[in-house]
């Protein structure tokens, strides 16, 4: 499956800025990178694409010296090089723009840029030089930014610009960008790409890590595809197409062949009206969302991660408060002025499978049986009155472990010692067993193995057929298309539109996820 690249490059004969030979890296039992080969030609934009968790970031952190590979070789400009720290990487002309910016928010731009290369023991000495670098970069690449501005007061796009300046200031010849557009508006992303092209034409080699196919097609010269910690292919961008890349990335034929059957939607159980959320910093995270979820249907929410889905889920579950708008759940009204906490929302008959089981869904240090009553622990299930009935809880846990095929079937095992799929099943078993009338689901199969995915999907369909109203948020388009009866698309905190499943196709949804309305998309 893995293709070697070394041959290809000898053929083209262009100089390699960077070459990795069978690099491996494990974290505990997780093998994040396995025998990864990579060759990057100088002066090109080289994309590295893969799903979340495919090992892209680990690989880049190895390149930048933040992690050390367990084995393998790294060649820079044709020389075998050992990079043990980020200082080494910087010394070899490698700069990195991190997904989460490495900026000190309460520092000024120039302080951030100087950090690590101050040019002398007194700041005064290096200041003038840094100002000149800022000026030059501004003129050459159009990256202007006020040196005295405090970073936390800059827009995300400008903050990223500071990151790029930091990476380039020492004359870096290789620039790594880790998911650079994840936090940018489309406009800012466009500006970024323009800058990257100028840099490439100037001879800088750029490594662009992304999970977005469109970016790879738009800007890269070559692309390498990662999956499950391995390199599964290398292509010249002009010789490939999105379909091929997607297949390589996913590596499994659309396995979402769950028989959806026919939905019989009845009355709406969840109705959202004009729901808005503005952050304390004034960002509009949700803008006037209005939709309904009916009994016996699954409303899928499609969108690129970070477009307001998480906030929507948390507000519906009572974990966050909306700024304005109202929610009707089974006839009861929750308004922004009179919010309900998660406990009351749960009591109304709402179940919630949270997006992130490690942060929200589970207490990893708790035993499975303690987790199986999380959120239901104050009900009779966990014991009468103020005391826990551990015997009943154990018995209940065993039953659910059988029903939902959770393994190992040891109620006393701590949650952290289960596999991802089984952890997720603990959450799902708990939430579904409470017989919710409305179920809010976020990323139900993230980091879950294939067998468990199918099982979870079947459970969701079964619950729908039992008359539950389900809101399903997923970044996996396949999952949305495979399970939903209607699909809502979100972009930048707004609902772009709601389609019936029959009207929807991947292309149309893709355009809507980019912010085009359904009419435009059609």
């Amino acid at each position, binding site marked *: 499956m893995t293709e070697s690249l070394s041959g290809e490059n000898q053929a083209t004969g262009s100089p390699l800025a960077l070459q990795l030979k069978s690099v491996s890296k494990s974290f505990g039992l997780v093998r994040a990178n396995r025998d990864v080969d990579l060759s990057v030609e100088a002066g090109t934009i080289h994309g590295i694409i893969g799903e979340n968790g495919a090992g892209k970031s680990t690989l880049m952190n190895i390149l930048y010296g*933040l992690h050390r590979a367990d084995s393998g070789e790294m060649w820079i400009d044709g020389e075998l090089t050992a990079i043990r720290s980020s200082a080494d990487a*910087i010394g070899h002309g490698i700069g990195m723009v991190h997904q989460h910016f490495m900026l*000190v928010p309460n520092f000024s731009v120039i302080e951030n840029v100087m*950090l690590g290369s*101050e040019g002398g023991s007194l*700041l005064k000495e290096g200041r003038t030089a840094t100002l000149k670098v800022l000026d030059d970069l501004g003129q050459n690449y159009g990256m202007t930014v006020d040196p005295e501005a405090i970073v936390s007061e800059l827009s995300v796009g400008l903050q990223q610009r500071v990151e790029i300046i930091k990476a380039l200031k020492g004359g870096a010849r290789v620039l790594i960008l880790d998911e650079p557009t994840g936090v940018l508006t489309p406009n800012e992303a466009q500006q970024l790409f323009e800058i990257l092209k100028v840099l490439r034409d100037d001879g800088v080699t750029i490594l662009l890590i992304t999970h977005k196919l469109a970016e790879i097609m738009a800007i890269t010269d070559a692309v390498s595809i990662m999956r499950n910690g391995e390199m599964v292919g290398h292509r010249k961008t002009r010789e490939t197409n999105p379909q091929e890349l997607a297949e390589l990335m996913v590596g499994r034929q659309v396995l979402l062949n769950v028989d959806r059957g026919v939905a019989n939607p009845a009355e709406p159980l969840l109705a959202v009206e004009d729901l808005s959320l503005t952050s304390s910093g004034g960002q509009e995270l949700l803008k006037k969302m209005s939709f309904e979820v009916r009994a016996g249907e699954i409303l899928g929410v499609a969108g690129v991660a970070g477009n307001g889905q998480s906030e929507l889920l948390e507000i519906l579950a009572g974990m966050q408060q909306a700024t304005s708008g109202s929610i009707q759940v089974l006839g009861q009204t929750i308004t922004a002025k009179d919010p309900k906490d998660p406990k009351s929302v749960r009591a109304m008959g709402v179940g919630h499978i949270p997006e992130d089981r490690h942060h929200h869904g589970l207490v990893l240090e708790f035993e499975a049986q303690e987790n199986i009553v999380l959120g239901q622990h104050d009900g009779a299930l966990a014991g009468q009155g103020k005391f826990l009935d551990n015997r009943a809880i154990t018995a209940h846990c065993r039953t659910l472990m059988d029903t939902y095929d959770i393994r190992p079937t040891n109620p006393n095992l701590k949650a952290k010692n289960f596999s991802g799929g089984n952890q997720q099943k603990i959450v799902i078993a708990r939430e579904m067993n409470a017989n919710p009338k409305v179920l809010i689901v976020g990323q139900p199969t993230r980091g879950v193995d294939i067998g468990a995915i199918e099982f979870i999907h079947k459970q969701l369909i079964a619950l729908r057929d039992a008359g539950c109203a389900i809101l399903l948020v997923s970044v996996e388009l396949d999952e949305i298309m495979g399970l939903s009866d209607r699909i809502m698309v979100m972009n930048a905190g707004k609902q772009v539109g709601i389609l019936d499943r029959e009207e929807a196709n991947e292309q149309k949804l893709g355009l809507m996820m980019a912010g085009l309305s359904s009419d435009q998309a059609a």
Partner: protein
Amino acid sequence: MSEFALQLLYTFDGTIRLATPLILCAMAGIFSERSGVIDISLEGKLLTGAFVAAAVAHTTGSPWLGVGGAILASVCMSMIHGFACITHRGNQVVSGLAINILASGLTVTIGIALFRQGGQTPLLAKGERFGPTEWWLVDLFNHVPILGTIYRELISGHNMLVYLALFLVPVSAFILYKTRFGLRLRAVGEVPAAVDSAGVSVIWLRYRALILAGLLCGIAGAYLSTAQGAGFVREMSAGKGYIALAAVIFGKWRPVPALLACLLFGFLESASSRLEGVPLPLIGEVPTQLMLALPYIMTVLLLAGFIGKANPPKAIGEPYIK
């Protein structure tokens, strides 16, 4: 000069003397905490410094050697803190507490073993401690009304360590804001990953911050036993390290505001001893305990956001894990 004004002058004079160890410890606390390491062990380092300074000064007859010894011992304590919190990512509060308790036990145990005086050091003779330094022209200015008295009582006549402490405040501010080390130090307490990614060692930076903290606490300790006092008595730090910590918070982790906080706290202590049993106009008699507790009360109120807002360094208390 009226009696009231003179009393006030003496109170200010006392303020400076009482604030000196607080100032030194507060600067120590700023270096440590700005680098992201909580330092409740100021107290223990101060106590250690006080003991070693007195012991060395008594043994060698030189107060300056005493200062040197105090610095060395206090830095050692700092290094234990660093070893636990930086190298082994231990809980910084627990480690600080251990050091404070260790210091209590060690100073008395070793003190008894060395001097057999129940944990005290022998009284230091004149040459073994820091005496007041007469400034130039005191006699000349003495005849100038008011200003002369102020010059004589308030500005001149303190010992060297007082002036050193006051001098070290602008030095600390300079280091923090104008040097490469200071820039990195401030960054590592906010976003250590940014420092790491810039190719600078987080661990070594924090160790250096702790060395500085140890150094300053050592001087503060020497001040207690060889300048303000004339020998070490057990538990002589008496919570000053904690007041200094309060001053660090009150000064929002910045040298000059922290200096002002130290002076304020010093003033409260100085005034409380003068006001004992003296009714004030309008307010009546103020319990001295209230004045002594004010630094703590004000710090609690500040931390709770009732008076202004204190934003600690963001990475404080968090061991850095790549």
